[in-house]
């Protein structure tokens, strides 16, 4: 184990221990039934600096890399932590990248179009000015179903004819309020005159969208693993016909199917995170450059063409982020995992009293938030078709009824620019 691995392991343990102390089933359930969050858990997290891991210190973050932030988000998902922890981590990274100072307190990210939060009533930014600027245009525009919008500072991202913008909106507690299936606040946030709006580099809005999808996927990864752990424990303890459920081959088969889905989500999220790590990206980036003109597909476009860091950068528009594949897999797996967990828990798992629901209601909500699998599948499929067209192989296939099978552009794309870094 390297020093970095050791540090990472230490951080992971620290987070898991802290969350385990606070996120008892009773407290998680109480947060959902009450104010929507657990203020004392939040205070404990803030005191340890965990809420802004992965954000640059000069912006007010705690420093550290995406690995740290990702591990914390996975742990938050596993613990069903009733606080905007993943949301704050993402917001810190977003502000940090844009070179803006990070406000104190809980944060949340919203995107003013597309996946995440769609504009509700009111004006689309750019149709007459920016939200909150100029004392009126866009004022009253709302972002729908913003996670913890009632109590967190919203960092909204969007783009218009003048480029990308970020808006920092104080938690006013205004607007409509809502909940997801787990009782987590999902609120309408209104652009008011007091919103601070900043011009930010091109690509920031795409980056925000990627962050939302990645962090939601990391939460799902944690929750899916927790659902599996709870189920493994249950089938070992619960006896029927004189033996533990785990001894029944049919139960074993379902448990393994569940594990397969959990592992797929884990592999996908890990790969997306590792693709952004400078240590792994360095050599891979050189490799890509070395591919040169011999490369058959869009794999040679650029080191991180499909990655998080490359989102929205010039040339990246053609590619689709690996994060889309990650969210697609996380969302589609979440439903399978939740269903098997409930089937193997039997009736007791469906009760309010049982802790399983704290995890499965999150899986059912999170799979639809920040891009459902249907949305991500379609986006990914369109990118696959575009990759095939880009090489001209598609046209060959069309005229020759696929006589040139195996020569298409799908593989170079799938093994290259989609998730460049680990996947080279």
């Amino acid at each position: 184990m390297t020093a970095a691995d050791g540090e990472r392991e230490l951080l992971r343990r620290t987070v898991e221990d802290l969350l385990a102390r606070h996120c008892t089933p009773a407290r998680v359930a109480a947060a959902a039934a009450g104010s929507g969050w657990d203020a004392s858990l939040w205070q404990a997290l803030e005191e340890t600096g965990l809420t802004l891991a992965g954000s640059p210190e000069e912006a007010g973050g705690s420093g550290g890399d995406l690995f740290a932030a990702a591990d914390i988000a996975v742990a938050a998902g596993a613990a069903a932590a009733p606080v905007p922890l993943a949301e704050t981590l993402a917001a810190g990274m977003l502000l940090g990248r844009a070179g803006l100072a990070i406000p104190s307190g809980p944060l949340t990210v919203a995107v003013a179009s597309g996946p995440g939060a769609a504009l509700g009533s009111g004006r689309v930014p750019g149709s007459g000015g920016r939200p909150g600027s100029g004392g009126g245009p866009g004022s009253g525009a709302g972002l729908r179903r913003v996670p913890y919008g009632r109590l967190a500072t919203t960092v909204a991202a969007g783009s218009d004819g003048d480029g990308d913008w970020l808006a920092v909106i104080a938690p006013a507690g205004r607007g409509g309020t809502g909940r997801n299936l787990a009782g987590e606040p999902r609120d309408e946030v209104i652009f008011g005159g007091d919103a601070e709006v900043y011009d930010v580099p091109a690509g920031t809005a795409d980056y925000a969208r990627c962050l939302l999808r990645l962090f939601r996927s990391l939460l799902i990864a944690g929750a899916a693993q927790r659902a599996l752990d709870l189920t493994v424990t249950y089938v070992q303890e619960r006896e029927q016909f004189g033996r533990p459920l785990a001894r029944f081959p049919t139960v074993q088969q379902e448990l393994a199917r569940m594990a397969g889905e959990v592992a797929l989500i884990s592999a996908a999220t890990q790969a997306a995170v590792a693709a952004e790590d400078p240590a792994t990206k360095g050599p891979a980036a050189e490799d890509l450059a070395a591919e040169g003109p011999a490369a058959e597909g869009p794999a040679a476009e650029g080191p991180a063409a499909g990655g998080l860091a490359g989102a929205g950068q010039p040339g990246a528009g053609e590619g689709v982020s690996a994060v889309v594949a990650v969210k697609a897999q996380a969302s589609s797996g979440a439903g399978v995992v939740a269903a098997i967990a409930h089937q193997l828990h039997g009736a007791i798992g469906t009760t309010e009293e049982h802790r399983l629901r704290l995890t499965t209601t999150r899986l059912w909500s999170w799979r639809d938030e920040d891009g459902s699998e249907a949305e991500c599948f379609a986006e990914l499929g369109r990118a696959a078709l575009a990759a095939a067209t880009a090489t001209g192989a598609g046209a060959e296939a069309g005229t020759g009824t696929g006589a040139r099978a195996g020569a298409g552009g799908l593989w170079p794309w799938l093994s290259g620019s989609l998730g460049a870094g680990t996947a080279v």
Partner: protein
Amino acid sequence: MRDGTLLPPVRPLPAGAAELRSQVRGFLSAERTAGRFVPACDAWLSGWDESFSRRLADHGWVGMTIPREYGGQGRSALERYVVVEELLAAGAPVAAHWVSDRQVGPNLLRYGSEPLKRRYLPAIAQGTCYFAIGLSEPDAGSDLAAVRTTGTRADGGWTVSGTKIWTSGAHRAHALIALLRTAPPDGRQRHVGLSQLLIELDQPGVTIRPIISMTGEHHFNEVVFDAVFVPDEQVVGTIGDGWAQVTSELAYERSGPERLLSTFVLLDTLVGELAARSGDSGSGDLGSGDLGSAGAVGRVVARLWACRQMSLAVAGALAAGEAPEIAAALVKDVGTRLESEIIEVARMLTATLRVEPDPEGSGMAGLLAQAILHAPGFTLRGGTNEILRGIVARGLALR
């Protein structure tokens, strides 16, 4: 348990992997252009082409992990992974050297005696020496420890009698690596007394009978040994350690790219067709405008991408000397089911084009026929998925 414990960590591929990948793509492109192979589904089982194997070996891409002193390239397991997935994604005919490259080479490097290594490894690396695997028997399928082929002690070796079945390529292979019983089981300890022997197939007492698949192809065989003498030099590893040796190989066998890519050529061709048709018709009814088609493609693409990340994670762990048995079994379970799911998506999306599977057909029709008729084997070979899921569950719940 925590996230990540099911799977080893994702590790980066070695420096130079992309350049290697590019070289292999260049080679494959030239081979295709020259008409030296036609991409096919499941070609790692049925694409037996010895001249292709030799040309591949000329580039140093067969047995490439074999050290130079034994005629190989001394490349890493992950570099081999890159080459193999390129070959599989292209539907290249790699069946002839498949077992030599994936199984026997690494096995001999790990367990083989010096003379055994000298005898076989150089020929493996030249792409001229082919093997079959002798595990299954008529009464030992999923229950591998039930093998009844026996090796009886003889002067200077073993006398082997018994029957192996489903031995791919035995009718063309030079030798067979067999798991057999050299001592009776120790009570209920059935894994005791098993050994691995390399048996040359061109000798008296060996009868090879074809088993024709429903495709009409001949790749499976029944191999009968009738008092075949196998000298001590052909023992792989240690007599009595056969079970441990075989099971240690299984992580390689179960987690490789061949567990995800058997129908990739079909998917690639499908996507090419859809892209072409959406281009033909302007806005396109099957292309970017249609969430249904794109979504169905995206569903299998997302899963394939994630499966590949899993497979790579296991490959990285294997290269680091770990033995991630549960993760390897998971790769095979999810990957082989995906291979069949791709067929269903292809059928669904080509239905409006009136493409029907046709063994004589070219393009989609022919590929669909190959894929459909081969698909039942995907979740059987290398340990049925039910057995693998049992391994996973026991690893999770009963350890």
